[in-house]
């Protein structure tokens, strides 16, 4: 399945990317699985998405937990806690 990834704010800067299209061989992955895949890239990926960081997620523009299941074509965003207002 294909997932559209987006990164925002400090995460975007740390990764040097605002997103990418991710092709996944397996179906039925959760948000946490995608995080694991990205961390496995090592370097800035491992650091910025480390277990010690608070990484928020949104699927199809709705905030969600890391256990949320993904479907083909989903838009998945990762970002730090929000600081508006």
């Amino acid at each position: 399945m294909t997932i559209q990834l987006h990164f925002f704010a400090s995460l975007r800067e740390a990764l040097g990317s605002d997103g990418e299209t991710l092709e996944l061989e397996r179906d039925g992955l959760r948000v946490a699985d995608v995080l694991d895949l990205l961390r496995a890239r090592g370097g800035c990926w491992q650091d910025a998405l480390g277990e010690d960081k608070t990484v928020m997620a949104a699927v199809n523009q709705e905030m969600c937990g890391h256990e949320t299941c993904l479907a083909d074509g989903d838009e998945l965003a990762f970002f730090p806690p929000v600081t508006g207002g």
Partner: protein
Amino acid sequence: MEQVVVTAEPFDPHVETEKLHGENPSIGAIVDFIGWMRDFNDGDSVSRMTLEHYPGMTEKALRKIVDEALRRWDLLGVRVVHRVGELKPSEPIVLVAVASAHRGEAFRACEFLIDYLKTCAPFWKKESTIAGERWVEAKRSDEAARGRWEDASKSS
């Protein structure tokens, strides 16, 4: 009238409130919250701020919060305007304006809206200080402020 506006242009909170009141003669109370950019934060002077958002999701998140407020309280109108992009000190960042027939509802709903906006709407602040740029950290007190509304069903 659009209830939610995310804009890269400076806005005048007073013009926005005026639009909310319109000349609707059944409005008895308006409570406004205006958040301003300060020139000082966490012990450092701040000369500039950049506000990033998640186009599409930000608007959706704000509309969801507004819908929840309209469900909880008897309101005559709501307007939420939020700046993005580059800001200078003393510019308004956010306006939350709530109109109702009586004041209790407007106070409750206005504070509910800003508490949720601060924790659930995707905006991120980056400050420019003399020591360089830095991302603003989320405040635990904002999380606590939002928590107050979760147990309470319709507050009086």
